[in-house]
């Protein structure tokens, strides 16, 4: 049971971070389908940092360095979307899809290059971080508290305050609702959209590293992040683009995702004798059903997905 709670919380943290990232980007008016790719890149940055940092360094240092590496990679990678969508008015769905493919391909190429450089016989696309991973975790009884859970909580509180209580957040949201109107009162729409996308890069990158360190001590980058970025998008939509609701949804989805990791620990579930694929499918089925019942009264930002053109009326 403790294990279930633990996995639920950590997966919910990932979903929350990434969905909040998507929330910022979409409120500024840019659809970010590329979150999956951003997660992969963030995960790559963090994993490489964990691989090369001295495991005997202070845990706080390891934690901060890893988080920072992920953030930097995520933000840099999200620039690809920002430039294409904001400056070149490209199709945001297409660019996002390309970023997802590019993220996995690039990460695989980079990891393999790093691995073969170390040892010519090693052509795997995995990175191990057994030792350094311990820096993130503090045991409270049998519960493994991961510091990233705290980070996710902070991100949640910060998002609520920034979006609804600051000038910046309100302006950001105006750009996603009616950019022409925002522009007419002197808000620089391009700048705001850049901010939105880059914040999504920051949170997406963080989410990536948390995801790959959640249950395992080694990650195979060929698999990317297995659709988790898209799950986060579903969380965001079900959360109606509102941070508080996103948090609750993330907990729900996290629970279902956690079940696939720990269902073997429950006699009731084992007795059902279902193949493990069923548990793997579960989060996606739930999210599809949930979307079917909630999308009708969607509160999506009005101008999302539409490139801003100053001359348009």
């Amino acid at each position: 049971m403790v294990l279930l709670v633990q996995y639920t919380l950590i997966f919910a943290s990932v979903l929350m971070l990434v969905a909040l990232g998507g929330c910022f980007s979409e409120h500024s008016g840019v659809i970010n389908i590329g979150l999956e790719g951003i997660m992969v890149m963030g995960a790559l940055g963090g994993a490489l940092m964990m691989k090369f940092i001295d495991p005997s360094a202070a845990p706080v240092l390891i934690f901060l360095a890893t988080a920072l590496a992920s953030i930097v990679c995520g933000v840099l990678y999200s620039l690809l979307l920002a430039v294409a969508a904001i400056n070149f008015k490209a199709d945001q769905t297409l660019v996002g899809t390309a970023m997802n493919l590019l993220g996995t391909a690039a990460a695989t190429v980079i990891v393999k290059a790093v691995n073969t450089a170390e040892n010519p016989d090693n052509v795997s696309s995995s990175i191990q971080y057994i030792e350094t991973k311990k820096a993130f975790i503090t045991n409270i009884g049998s519960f493994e508290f991961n510091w990233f859970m705290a980070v996710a909580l902070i991100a949640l509180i910060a998002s609520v305050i920034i979006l609804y209580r600051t000038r910046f957040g309100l302006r950001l949201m105006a750009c996603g609702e009616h950019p022409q109107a925002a522009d007419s009162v002197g808000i620089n729409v391009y700048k705001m959209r850049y901010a939105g996308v880059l914040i999504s890069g920051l949170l997406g990158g963080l989410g990536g590293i948390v995801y790959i360190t959640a249950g395992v001590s080694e990650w195979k980058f060929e698999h990317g992040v297995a659709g988790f970025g898209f799950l986060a998008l579903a969380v965001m939509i079900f959360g109606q683009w509102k941070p508080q609701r996103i948090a609750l949804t993330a907990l729900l989805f996290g629970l279902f995702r956690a079940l696939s990791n720990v269902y073997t620990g429950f006699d009731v579930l084992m007795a059902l004798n279902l193949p493990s694929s069923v548990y793997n499918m579960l989060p996606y089925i739930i999210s599809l059903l949930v979307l079917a019942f909630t999308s009708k009264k969607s509160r999506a930002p009005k101008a999302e997905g539409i490139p801003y053109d100053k001359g348009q009326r």
Partner: protein
Amino acid sequence: MNNEPKKSLLRSNGLQSLIASLLCILLGLFVGYIVLLIINPVGAWEAIVTVMKNFLYYPSEAAALKYFGSTLVKAAPLLLCSLSVLFAYKVGLFNIGAAGQYVAGVGASLYCALALNMPWYVCLFAAMVAGGLMGAISGALKAYQNVNEVISCIMLNWIGLYAVNILLSGVKEETSPYTITLKAGNPNAQLPNMGLDQLFNNNKYVTLALPLAVLAAILVWVILEKTKLGYELKATGLNKDAAKYCGMREKRNIILTMVISGALAGMGAACFYLTGVEQWNCMQASVPAMGFNGIAAAFLGGLNPIGTIFSSYFIQHITSGGSYIDTSMYCAQISDLISSIIIYLCGFVLFVKVSMNRGLDKRDEKAKAKKGGKA
């Protein structure tokens, strides 16, 4: 006298698309080359040449011909997947679910072949139905519940993958996670060669799938450009409220589009797995890349069914070429990297076209001014 100003050749939409696509390819290759240079400067040029050469890697003509056939065998399903993406995109839907519909096609065709011992045409049909159904779910969700088709397609990709893994676990080999070969399980389910294998130095995987795929491309072009149905579908894509106002059944059109689109992707799966060239791995943990590469091919082909034939071949050509790279220095995924960069660059095609037209406008204006000055 002809008063119409002569239209510059450069203004034709087709040529502009071609130029934009070639630009994307060149830039994609260039970025790939730079990545290779960073990884290991010694063999970078050689590696990029290997990727481009693909089957020409073999010095003997016979072997090259055989592997040319192999590339074509994989290009056929890719073409069908890209047609699937293209068809939906023309109707304003982004079918990122081609991968899932493809997986559904794999499941249906192999299950019919191996568990039910059906002949190949039934398997092919089953694959199309399965893919179509998968598409219909996304289409219906979009039409009736306003679910964004991108998200629902992605969820269905994963659901489809795991479901097919469960389904095909029933017909897998005892000792491996792979499904039974068609040769051993049900030779009747193999697509007929129709003598095409002779053309490629007895490459027995070259089958009916090739002409079928090309035929499908032509058919898609005819439907979209020459029929009432195609016109209605495109009108719905441009503005579904206007289409409704004109008396078109916009909900039906959306669903129908996804069904056709899904059937194309499902057919792609049958055209690949019923040749017997590969077995399905029931432990597969990621959605096959075929559907996503289809997106690349569709956009690279300038969203034209005929252009897609060439772009699909090209994408498969470099993907196959990637496997010949010297693995002691680089990895085969470099070709995935190149093709994903190409997709990314395809996002800029519109920008390229707009700036090309702007350049032409300027030139014309200058020419006009000169003429005016003389007169």
